């Protein structure tokens, strides 16, 4: 497949293409041909090749014209910059070195955004290798934002969808250079052709100070670094790390659905799977699933999220939690019908449905945790995440059934419900919440210690964020509350224990979201223009 660009380039002289410049812009009838050295490839792509950016750090003067040109090209709001300029510096005065990075999308060979997208909104263009994103297909789940090690995709809240650099695909196919290339006064940015197989073997030229390691997704951007420099160049923006978005809908959704899974597990173990409890758990599950939808920029299209279950953990989570809801609903109905003696099921069959629901809940929780196991967000990408998700279910689940039974008890005393004999009879061990709390606290403690001692800047920065004035009280509360949740049942205060456990998990989950420090390219000192 050939592109107009290449046809144009092929018909022109080698190494350059002929452009038209209009001497009089009022009358484009008198074109003057001027030959300019081209900053876009002059031949067509062959099989096994793709386009890439080349950034020449030795030419860039940090003027940021490319950033403005990109925003104007794409009509983006002022706070969204698909091309960003960063600063790196090192050395001691007067032998100080400062350089700039100007980066759009790296159009990676193994693009994580493509793999993680639950709705297949991303495609790696088979001809050009450009990673394209479709705003129409996108549901605004922002999983790509979490997945990209360069923080390239940016969520446009006004639109409810993500957007990113497409190498000005529409201009390239028209034989024109991308807006950033066009605007650069120093010709520091150009488009070139890369042989993907060769690049996969040796992508050392993609590495640069101030850039995350290229190997993870195999960034295709080639960066020309200053020659023979022994000065260590470092980021200047690291003191400006801000908390990330709290994603409150996800905080509540994950907390609630994990609570239900844990509660159901213990209810089955201790013979507590009785009609009113199950009804309440079903209500909580449907609330949780409804809340989760509002995490999306486009809630109306939540159903699309299951599409890519073969490769996206987000799709799998949605699918498994959907099935979990079906199973718990089926189990609840079955138990009710049994209780009302409308049907009679063999006890093993009934138990099987219940255990099936538990299994789906655990599977969903694990899928849910896997969403966060992304290398681009190191503080999430730890075994502690799935452990936390499971232990949170146990911590809350160890007391929640008791509390719910009490609520159910209040309900069952209503005149209307008295004939159904809905009183709960199950008893749960008092030591269980304590055990869960110890495990939960241990997991969180080890995580904090590991973050603190990590060799990765992003991990340490996450720990540092939690140690800021604003977040430190939350951290302290997130440790005190589970201890309370473990101790209170020993004196029979299950309801307070439940409240403490839920609060603990919500606070810890809030911290989990806000304190993560994503991998990113180096930005400027003020981090201006960055999302």
């Amino acid at each position: 497949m050939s592109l107009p660009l290449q046809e144009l380039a092929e018909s022109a002289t080698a190494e350059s293409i002929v452009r038209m410049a209009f001497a009089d812009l009022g009358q484009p009838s008198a074109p003057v041909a001027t030959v300019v050295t081209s900053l876009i490839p002059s031949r067509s792509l062959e099989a096994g090749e793709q386009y890439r950016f080349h950034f020449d750090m030795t030419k860039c003067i940090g003027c940021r014209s490319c950033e403005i040109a990109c925003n104007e090209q794409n009509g983006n709001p002022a706070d969204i910059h698909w091309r960003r300029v960063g600063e790196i510096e090192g050395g001691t005065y007067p032998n100080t070195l400062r350089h700039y990075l100007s980066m759009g999308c790296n159009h990676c060979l193994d693009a994580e955004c493509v793999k993680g997208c639950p709705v297949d909104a991303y495609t790696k263009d088979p001809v050009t290798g450009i990673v394209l994103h479709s705003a129409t297909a996108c549901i605004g789940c922002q999983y790509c934002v979490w997945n990209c090690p360069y923080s390239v995709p940016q969520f446009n809240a006004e639109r409810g969808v993500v957007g990113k650099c497409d190498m000005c695909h529409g201009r390239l196919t028209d034989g024109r250079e991308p807006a950033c290339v066009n605007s650069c006064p120093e010709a520091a940015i150009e488009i070139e052709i890369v042989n993907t197989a060769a690049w996969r073997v040796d992508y050392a030229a993609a590495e640069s100070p101030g850039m995350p390691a290229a190997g993870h997704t195999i960034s295709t951007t080639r960066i020309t670094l200053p020659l023979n420099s022994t000065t260590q160049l470092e980021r200047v923006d690291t003191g400006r790390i801000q908390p990330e978005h709290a994603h409150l809908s996800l905080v509540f959704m994950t907390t609630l659905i994990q609570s239900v899974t844990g509660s159901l597990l213990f209810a089955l173990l201790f013979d507590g799977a009785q009609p009113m409890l199950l009804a309440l758990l079903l209500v909580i599950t449907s609330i949780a699933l409804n809340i989760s939808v509002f995490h999306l920029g486009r809630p109306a299209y939540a159903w699309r999220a299951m599409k890519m279950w073969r490769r996206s953990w987000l799709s799998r989570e949605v699918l498994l939690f959907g099935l979990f809801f079906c199973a718990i609903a089926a189990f609840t109905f079955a138990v009710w019908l049994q209780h009302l003696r409308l049907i009679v099921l063999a006890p093993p069959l009934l138990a099987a449905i219940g255990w099936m629901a538990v299994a789906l809940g655990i599977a969903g929780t694990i899928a849910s945790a896997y969403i966060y196991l992304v290398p681009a967000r190191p503080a999430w990408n730890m075994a502690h995440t799935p452990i936390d998700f499971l232990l949170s279910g146990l911590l809350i689940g160890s007391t929640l059934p008791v509390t719910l039974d009490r609520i159910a008890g209040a309900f069952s005393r209503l005149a209307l419900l008295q004939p159904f004999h809905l009183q709960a009879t199950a008893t749960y061990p008092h030591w269980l919440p304590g055990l869960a709390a110890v495990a939960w606290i241990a997991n969180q403690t080890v995580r904090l210690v590991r973050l603190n001692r990590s060799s990765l800047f992003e991990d340490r920065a996450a720990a540092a964020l939690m140690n800021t004035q604003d977040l430190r009280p939350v951290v302290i509360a997130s440790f005190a509350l589970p201890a309370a949740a473990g101790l209170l049942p020993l004196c029979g205060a299950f309801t307070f224990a439940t409240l403490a456990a839920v609060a603990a998990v919500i606070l810890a989950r809030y911290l989990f979201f806000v304190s993560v420090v994503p991998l990113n390219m180096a930005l400027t000192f003020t981090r201006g223009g960055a999302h």
Partner: protein
Amino acid sequence: MWTRIRRALGIDTRQSEYTFEHDPRFGHIAATRVADRWVKTTCGYCSVGCGMLVGVKDNKAVTVRGNPDHPVNRGKLCPKGLSEHHILDAPGRAKLPLLRKNGKLVPVSWDEALTVMIEKISVVQRRYGNDALGVISTGQLVTEEFYTLGKLVQLGFGSRNYDGNTTLCMASAVSGYKLTFGSDGPPGSYADMETADVILLIGANIADNHPILCQRLERNRINNPDSTVIVVDPRVTKTAMMADIHLPIKPRGDIALLNGIAHLLIRDGHIDRDYIERHTTGFEEFAAFVAEFTPEHVAQVTGLSEETIINTAYLYGKAKAAFIGWTMGVNHSTQGAATVTAINNLSLITGNIGRAGAAPFSITGQCNAMGSRESSFTSALPGYRKFEKPQDREDLARIWNIDANRIPTARGLAYPDIIEAAVNGKVKALWFIATNPVVSFPNYSVLVQALESVDFLVVQDGFHPTPTSEFAHLVLPAAIWGEKEGTYTNSERRVSKVNPVVVPPGEARTDFDIFLALAEKLGVREELYPGWQSTHDAFREWQRVSEGRMCDYSKFTWQQLEDEGGAQWGGDRLYADGVFPTATGKAALYSVPCLPFVEQPNEEYDLIFNTGRTVEHWHTRTKTAEVKMLDNMVPNAWLEMNPIDAARLELRPHDRVNVVSRRSTVRDIELRITGIVAPGQVFMPFHFAETNSNLVTLGAFDPISREPNFKQCAVRIEKFSRTIT
């Protein structure tokens, strides 16, 4: 309502606002940026003078492009230029005349505004004399407006106390040129930066301030791989990083360095004796004077090694064509004019002037600072004429058809002296046009005293409120770049056409219209501006006034300027024949002593304070703060400090600090600990009214040019605390 629900649910993603179309000229682009007509014009920010095309759709400016055919920028623009269309419909534009009544600014009609202005000024002038009116103009108007304003102030209002904010910027360059060559006028061209073997940039951070000039250095490097770029700057600027050699000089060591180079070149015979003989005066005295500037002495003053000094001298002396460019590092000094003559000395003794690649060259600040130098009636008579020369006054009187006695025989007060006169009660009415002294003038407290002392303060500006317009008794809303027609002159004497793109917002009027309306009310319109309707009438008279002068506008028409990407008066470079407009026809060599800067650090104020710019912002941000993208990129100022000083003061990155000088304090500024600045020095960008560097700067002025010494004063840095002490 329905739309809001659809947006909340994500059914509507504002897709229609994010579609792309094919622009016939520039290809695939966001549909919102597709223009239905293009207007050729010149950028209104800095003095590089880039040619641009502004795209207009439905009478709204929607996009800006560098004009690929313009010789200055060849299609490239800096981020400010690329987003310039956003300032036209910015929310902060001044739209109505406002008059202070009972302490509050309230909208009034133009008629009332101008009537009150004339009345108040007349009262002041009757009571205190004509010179009690002080007028501070700008580098932002079109040349035709400067020309019109000059006549209005000097002949209409009859006040000599008229100056421009250009005195804060390039007055030292003007004075230096006048001293050495007998006239203002930057001798070189940008093209010289492409052909020179050695480019010496002194106190010029072009990568931040004039980024579009950097491509000249790049082209030079390609064409001439052996060329050398030397940057002299106490700070490791973006430009210093581009240099082959960076000379991290001690502040105000530049004169010593220049004299030291001159001494070495004279001593070792790398000078052009023939040129010196035929085209300069005062060489023997000069040679004797600079003999004291031995490498040893210069090393001591500049902090550079002797080897570096000798190496630099030889590079410069042996170059076939050597170029010296400078900006505010030189001009913003009490020795600014003297430093310029020291630069000129070096060019003259090596014959590096009037040839391709060889020139001493000041790079100016504002888009039309040069136009004000040529045509305004402030420090000189229009057309580079001198107040002191009867012949010049008579020339003008003849063209203007007035009595020559009406033309003053000496200039009035310069900008800082007008401010001082206002504080002393000698100037009782002030009129500021397109400038924002509350942020741009040194030593804020004195300036504010001046603003509060006068009986009547008029601020004419494209934006309101500005920190200055908030003090005004009368605010006149003016049109800005993109709404006016005329010409700008850039740093290389290139006169370019400026065209209106849209109409001014609200009731804002062009400065030209305001000047004519005032003339009408004063009863001088027909006398001063016979039959004038548009700036083109001003241009035609200005052509006659400048005819035969160095800045001769009679050689081109507006149309030619527009079609040909402007024209340089005086051609590619001045003084190719070695004949200078002095009494002797020769250029003067001056003996320039190197003095330490005025306010040296001591124990209490232990750091040297330096100010400058950042590429994203323009001057006092009245424009760029209105462009969300630019403001978002750099939303606040910072203070740069070397790690050694930070360790000594026990400060950490991002600490909030106060900058304290003998005059006042800049509070609550973010600390950037960096090797960009030298130990013992701190730097902050001056754009931000919120953290106004001029609270602490020194009110010391060059005795020749009257330019303020913005660059060095003594400060100490304290940790900011919220409690007010």
